[in-house]
């Protein structure tokens, strides 16, 4: 039997970084299996039947008291409703879903997050920082992301920020780093973020072997446990489920041109 289940949680804290970006700390009302780096949860904050389904989010942090932090960007109906939920409110979760990043084989771990794709990267950082050198690279659009980039999530982390408009950190995207040769042999790369960025990864970094690059992908989901076959992405081995065979895939096995 799987470890995944539907459970309730209480919203302990909501922190707004901007109109469109906030963090939600929720405390499960029952014991759940702790997530591994790369795993995610399905979440909803509404009663009623519309929206119909949970929304997938990867935790940023798991705290000692069992609470989980989620970083959420408002993009549509579901995330809008989640934003309006207040401290003390009840939410529903399903998880922990998905595979996870395998233990790193490289000598250094480079974690790259594009926008909210940073969530599972911070989680991975916390998990591995004691075991090997880890570097966190965050790419953001710029304006509107200041408060988030300066938040205490990142205090004491080896973090480098890039922004498209140059308003925060260095100008450019995380890929800029590769062009400059600051990443190379022996490095293992995990990344999560916009498809364009992930796709470019494999070609941008000649020095890193393709099978030392892992990406965490997104797809629309219904069940989250591999049942509905709704969340597949094309791979070298045919369609694979993001929720069950992923969300973490080797860069080299994804059929990027069909995505």
């Amino acid at each position: 039997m799987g470890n995944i289940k539907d459970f309730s949680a209480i919203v302990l804290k909501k922190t707004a970084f901007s109109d469109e970006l906030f963090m939600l700390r929720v405390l499960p009302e029952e014991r759940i299996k702790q997530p591994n780096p790369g795993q995610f949860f399905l979440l909803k904050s509404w009663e009623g039947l519309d929206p119909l389904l949970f929304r997938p989010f990867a935790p940023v942090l798991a705290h000692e008291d069992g609470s989980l932090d989620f970083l959420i960007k408002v993009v549509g109906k579901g995330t809008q409703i989640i934003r309006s939920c207040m401290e003390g409110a009840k939410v529903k979760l399903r998880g922990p879903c998905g595979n996870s990043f395998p233990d790193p084989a490289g000598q250094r771990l480079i974690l790259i997050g594009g926008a909210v794709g940073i969530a599972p990267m911070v989680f991975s950082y916390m998990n591995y920082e004691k075991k090997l050198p880890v570097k966190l690279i965050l790419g953001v659009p710029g304006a509107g992301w200041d408060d988030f980039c300066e938040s205490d999530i990142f205090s004491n982390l080896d973090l480098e920020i890039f922004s498209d408009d140059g308003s925060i950190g260095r100008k450019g995207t995380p890929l800029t780093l590769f062009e400059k040769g600051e990443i190379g042999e022996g490095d293992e790369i995990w990344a999560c973020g916009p498809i364009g960025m992930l796709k470019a990864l494999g070609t941008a970094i000649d020095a890193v072997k393709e099978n030392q690059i892992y990406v965490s992908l997104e797809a629309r989901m219904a069940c989250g446990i591999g049942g509905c076959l709704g969340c597949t992405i094309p791979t070298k081995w045919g369609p694979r489920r993001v929720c069950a065979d992923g969300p973490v895939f080797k860069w080299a096995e994804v059929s990027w041109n069909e995505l």
Partner: protein
Amino acid sequence: MSFSDILGVSIGKLMLRSPIIIASGVWPMEPERWPSGIVDKVGAICTKGLTFSPKEGNKGIRLWETPCGLLNSIGLQNPGLESFLKNEFQMLKNCGCPLIFNLAFHREDELDLLLDKLSSSGFDGTVEINVSCPNVSGGGMAWAVDLMSLEMVLKKARAKWKGDIWVKLSPNVPDIYDSAIVAENCGADAIVVANTWLGLAIDIKKKKPVFERIFAGLSGPAILPLSLRLVWEATNVVKIPVIGCGGITDTESALGMLMAGASAIQIGTGLLRDFEVINKICGGIEGYMEENEIDSVKQLVGLAKKNHNIRG
């Protein structure tokens, strides 16, 4: 009384411990993925739609939420019956409740091949013939829509298959009466009413249809009033059990479906939305029966038809 004395129903040769069946295509075919405690009260589980050859399914977006509904265009992705029998089935056969083989086919002779392969594997249980998948071309739903070909394939299947045959009808038909009667006349042991409704979604950012195949199948609570109506209609014209399917998400909708005439119920989208839904519904039905002093769930079947003319 035990749980299954109260909630048990029989459909053809099958005895189900509860009237709640997991509909085809929503539940993992790997029991090790099942969250614990979720299927304990399930009457039966339908397999993912199986075809003779493996199928990769449709490309592009496969799921799209609509108001209280879900459009899907999976396109019958499956490993093919042979591989399924060798792998998934080995684990599934011990899952604690009957497994219903949902069979889909493009050409007529494919159903023959499917049934042959199935018998030769030793399985002689219930098959659910899927003549209503809207998400594949040249086959699927086309079978239910054309009454002549429906009759032809069902007759052949009946001649071949010794176990029970359920026929999963399409709601996308001129009217459900005709196909229900054809299925009964061809010797079906039950009909499932129904599958998904043909729908469309437009992606206004891309300014084009969401799905590569344009249309997709609508399921979920949005269609509940429509499937209730179909079940009411179908049970007016056939005597074989009708299994209600479409939009069940809670005790109230499940009870409504039974009272409208369904002998059992399939749940698809409702389970995607809430893993606890089957336990909740079984509990809810039991509670309702106790309150209303009803001993057996069978007494609920078609109750609304009997009461229709009573005032108040």
